[in-house]
């Protein structure tokens, strides 16, 4: 214990003393794509091992031998040296594909011209391409939960407000139509759930696991962010029906059916034909509504 503390102490004091003697070291963070000789995108120049072996004398590459690592940062390199590196990165590819060579000038032009705006353009382009081909039907499997205000009654004169936690699986279908950057959708899901209900007055016994059926639907407007993601606003419309009865036969819980609507935020992430779609919002009057779904598009 004391030993560890002392080691830390010595190391930190030593480094503190050297802290003031900082030297200049330039860092260039150019990124190249090995898979794309045009040097667009922000992917790698190859693994550390390959790069290191092929680098001319005097150049150094920061990195570590992690196979998971794609990118490299070039240290202490002038722009000219970086371009040399880029040339080599391209050559690695060309060796395999026999493409015609890009000379240094072309690479320099690519680097100079490359910007985030270009990347954004690529994103938008991807998105539009995706949008233009999107008229999708999807099947959904998920789970929904919301809370409702209810009223307990003994059938004579005593009533008390209560709350119902409703939760359960859903199975549905949706239709999505694209228009440039935006997408419009409609979804309907059958809901097979349970309710857990209790009143604010202990006269009435809480009721658990009461069968509840319903339809959970929504009208959606999405903003397409890329070919694999979008975010949007939804108007959830929920109809549920449950003949809820407390354990004492004289107690009734109303309403037996209800229509709820509200506003929610939804994002969708696409992975091949599959979609992950979390949705959260408020339904009237101010109750939390959540719906998590996994979809399959066809």
């Amino acid at each position, binding site marked *: *214990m004391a030993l560890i503390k002392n080691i830390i102490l010595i190391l930190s004091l030593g480094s503190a003393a050297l802290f003031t003697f*900082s030297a200049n070291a330039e860092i260039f963070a150019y990124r190249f794509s090995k898979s794309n000789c045009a040097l667009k995108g922000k992917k790698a120049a190859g693994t550390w091992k390959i790069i290191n072996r092929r680098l001319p004398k005097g150049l150094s590459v920061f990195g570590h031998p992690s196979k998971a690592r794609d990118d490299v940062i070039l240290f202490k390199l002038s722009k000219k040296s970086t371009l040399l590196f880029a040339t080599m990165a391209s050559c690695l590819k060309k060796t395999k594909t026999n493409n015609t060579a890009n000379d240094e000038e072309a690479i320099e032009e690519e680097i100079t011209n490359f910007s985030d705006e270009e990347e954004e353009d690529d994103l938008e382009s991807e998105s539009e391409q995706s949008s233009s081909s999107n008229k999708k039907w999807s099947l959904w499997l998920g789970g929904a939960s919301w809370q409702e205000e209810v009223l307990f009654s003994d059938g004579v004169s005593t009533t008390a407000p209560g709350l119902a936690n409703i939760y359960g699986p859903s199975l549905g279908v949706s239709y999505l139509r694209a228009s440039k950057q935006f997408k419009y959708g409609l979804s309907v899901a059958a809901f097979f759930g349970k309710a857990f209900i209790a009143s604010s007055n202990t006269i009435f016994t809480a009721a658990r696991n009461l069968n509840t059926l319903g339809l959970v639907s929504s009208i959606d407007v999405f903003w397409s962010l890329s070919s694999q993601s979008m975010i949007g606003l939804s108007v959830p419309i929920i109809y549920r029906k449950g003949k809820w009865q407390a354990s004492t036969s004289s107690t009734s819980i109303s309403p037996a059916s209800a229509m709820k609507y509200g506003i929610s935020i939804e*994002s969708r992430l696409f992975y091949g034909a599959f979609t992950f779609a979390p949705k959260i919002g408020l339904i009237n009057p101010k109750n939390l509504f959540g719906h998590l779904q996994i979809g399959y598009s066809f």
Partner: protein
Amino acid sequence: MIILFLISLFFIGKEAKAYPQYISYGYASCSVCHFNYFGNGPLTDYGRALAATVVADKMIIRKSDEVLGNQAGFLFSKKLPRWLRPSIDYRGAYFKRDLNQAGIPGKYIHMDANMGLVLQFLKRNKLVVAASVSYLPSSSPSTAKFKNLISREHYISYQVSKSTRLYAGMTDHVYGIRTEDHTVVSRTLTRLRQNDQTHGLVMHYKMPKGEVGAHLFAGNLYEKTAGKRQKGASAMGEFDLGENTRLGASLLYSTSKVSTRTLGAAHLRMGFSKGSSLLAELGYAHIKASDPATPTQQSPYIWLQSMTRIRRGLNFIFNGQFSSAENLSGTKTITLGPGLQWFPQQRIEFRLDLSGTRYFIPANTVVNKDTLTLVGQFHLWL
């Protein structure tokens, strides 16, 4: 001696952040951006440059990515010796519970304020020494000798071979998805919270399509009561399922005179195009107390987080959690909520999370109104 120690603490520290969702940018392994290959802790130069040129917006300093990458260091464009990498990190949070009930005041807390230092030596940074010291608010339980200071990380690591790196010292446990959200169920129910680091030996082994880790630990040696130190072992593996998709599993067993902990989890990280991601951890925590009067915790949990990139630096986050905190038949909790994460510039992060929690209490005769909580975070780092 005390003065020397305090001076030294001023120069050591770490950045308490880890963003496993950056698999969406093509970085499946934490080792790309962090000195600690399992994530969390100080950023490498590459991680800093990545934050400046890919993750964060450039609303304040409108310069080219090349310039921003060049200014990503601790002293901006002034370069330090390559072996020296200091850091400073601050994260504060304003939170307000029970938004739907009037009269409950909000509170601002200093979640984390730390200073760190990494020393890297030998060719290819084979040898790394990292340490941190953090300010601990007075309200937090402290095991440190100096009441308001704590070190969450100090270790020496060495690259034994191209595929193996060893660590000795105090680190987070090797287990599960190492998220910066230390209040999520995958960290609270497993007792792997903000200040639950341990001393031990860690091995990181990378493979062509994944990585594995093992951790032998002796508990937090700063814990005053030796009997409370959780000693044990853990292991974690993650494997590529496809491009930007990793499926993993974790196990942990530890014991002390107070309790025995057994954890298991399966986890998934998926990256979507350009910054959108999905993280999921499905786990089970079994914590048996030595005192027979204390009930055994048997907690299944699910943690989900999706991140949708709206534009560079701005992300929409969805958080979903399900857990049973006591046992399988005990109270069940569902927490859902949206959030926004904004990096207007490298070194600055704002985050706003709204979450609703719903309780299912079997023994209770009352259904609680959903609890709404608002958390705003401010994160600054050098």
